[in-house]
């Protein structure tokens, strides 16, 4: 029986093979068949040992997988006519946050989301998906624009966290996040939140308030990264896998706490293994959410939201 590390190495190897086969354009029929076979192998490898500690950490790795679809990838898969809106009209345009108008299945919507970069240059431009205050202010501005023109809001969450820098503090990172948390609940249009990659603490939450929270199967959502948690509790990063497990940051855990309303399945091997399929699965979940929320009157929508937010994460006991 191979160890978990060996299994993961095998998965990685198989993924590499798939990538090679896919790069030969157009892939021959034989190559397609081979890809299918490899994918099945990966799926069974992943299923073999769902040990809890490895499982949580594995999801952390999947949520951060370099080939995982990012916000703009999802926007292009889910929407047409995406028109980006830049800037917070106060200080700057933050490339770590994207916002704009688009059509979802023909219907105009507003989309906001954290954006990570794929290569080194893009990573730097996007600041690794960690917004500064102007990013949060831009997101709110565009969401308010949506509310003004009665457009539903889609919020796509994928960030390691809000950027911890000198400029960010000077310009009020905490104030920007707090302001969003207070103002977003007032917007009288349906808000669907999708946590599709990393839900990194306050930096994620600042655009993750709404009427319905969807979470992709392998996404994570946590108050602190497993690395930081490990360094606080054990004074080093070596316990990050253990930290990932005890933080209860997987979609299943959060669904159990009632923080997430619905888990959106991913294709075998994770969203990066078949982005188109991941997009299609997410599309149907969003469609259904918008349909249900769209059938409510504004008063019902706001009442329901108020109730939802009031009851959120009330895990206490009276003594």
């Amino acid at each position, binding site marked *: 029986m191979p160890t978990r590390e060996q299994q993961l190495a095998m998965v990685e190897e198989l993924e590499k093979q798939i990538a090679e086969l896919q790069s030969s354009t157009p892939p021959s029929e034989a190559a397609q068949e081979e890809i299918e076979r490899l994918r099945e192998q990966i799926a069974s490898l992943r299923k073999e040992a769902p040990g809890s500690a490895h499982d949580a950490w594995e999801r952390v790795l999947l949520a951060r997988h370099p080939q995982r679809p990012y916000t703009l990838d999802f926007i292009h898969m889910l929407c047409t006519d995406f028109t980006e809106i830049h800037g917070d009209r106060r200080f700057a345009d933050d490339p770590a946050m994207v916002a704009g108008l688009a059509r979802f299945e023909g219907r105009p919507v507003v989309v906001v989301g954290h954006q990570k970069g794929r290569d080194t240059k893009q990573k730097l431009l996007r600041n690794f998906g960690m917004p500064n205050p102007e990013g949060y202010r831009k997101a709110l501005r565009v969401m308010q624009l949506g509310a003004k023109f009665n457009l539903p809001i889609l919020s796509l969450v994928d960030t390691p966290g809000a950027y911890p820098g000198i400029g960010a503090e000077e310009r009020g*990172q905490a104030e920007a996040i707090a302001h969003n948390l207070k103002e977003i609940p007032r917007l009288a249009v349906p808000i669907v939140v999708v946590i599709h990659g990393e839900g990194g603490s306050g930096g994620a939450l600042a655009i993750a308030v709404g009427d319905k929270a969807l979470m992709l199967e392998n996404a994570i959502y946590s108050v602190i990264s497993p690395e930081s948690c490990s360094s606080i509790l054990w004074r080093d990063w070596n316990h990050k896998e253990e930290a990932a497990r005890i933080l209860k940051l997987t979609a299943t855990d959060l669904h159990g706490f009632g923080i997430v309303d619905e888990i959106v399945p991913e294709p075998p091997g994770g969203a990066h293994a078949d982005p188109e399929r991941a997009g299609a699965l997410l599309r149907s979940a969003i469609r259904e959410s918008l349909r249900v929320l769209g059938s409510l009157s504004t008063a019902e929508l706001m009442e329901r939201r108020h109730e939802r937010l009031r009851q959120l994460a009330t895990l206490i006991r009276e003594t």
Partner: protein
Amino acid sequence: MTWFRKEKKPLETSPAEKRVQTEGLWTKCEGCKQILWKKDLENNLQCCPKCGFHFKMGSRARLAMLFDEGKYEEYDAGLASPDPLHFADRKTYRARLEEAQKLTGMKDALLTGRGLMAGKPIIICAMEFQFIGGSMGAVVGEKITRAIDRCIAQRLPLVIISCSGGARMMEGAISLLQLAKISAALARFDETRKPYISVLTNPTTGGTTASFAMLGDLNIAEPGALIGFAGPRVIEQTIHQKLPEGFQRSEFLLAHGMLDAIVPRKDLKSYLASTLELLGAWNSSPTRS
């Protein structure tokens, strides 16, 4: 025979005198490094009589200082955490909770009271730093939200005194979502047109700053308090630079437009009473809507 024999008996200390403790009576000021008599510090609202440095103040002392004659009715004292994550690292969260409960005599890190301030009714919440660093979990979140609900129902002004490292790691994402719950409640409180004043004290960081602490109609701070989103160590590790002197202190935030005022502790009660009065906190006629 020795010529240096002692003629007198050695001096004897009386047993009563021996019991006088000197240890724990004195403390060193973190500001001016002078040695202070603790009694002097207590008599001066935990501020250094020499340089004015503001020491941390417990939540009970806070409420006692702000309510008339130190009298108030406590709310929700019995709320406690059920340890929803069954969190355990080298020590269980349950053990940490029990320890903190023993130390503070509180069930969690927040104290809510209703009483009179300068003769007028008000609800005040104070965070307790001694309780796991004043961290915010589901109990703190629920207690603040209930305090806001009560202010809405009773049409009362609200003051929250923050002293907290942020969200409580041991309750994971449940802690995180308290930020959303409290902030949404404050949005509803706005509709009553009753004022909420946020008082930031040393230290106020993380999720606490990124929610209710920055959402007051007025946000004021005590002098020299550390206030920020990310802690200084995290920022240093991220940017690999030494941080400038005074970074993230009250005076720095005031200069950057993030605070309305810095108010020394001795003036806090009169500042709150007079600004709340100016904002019409106790106007009997319904305010314009």
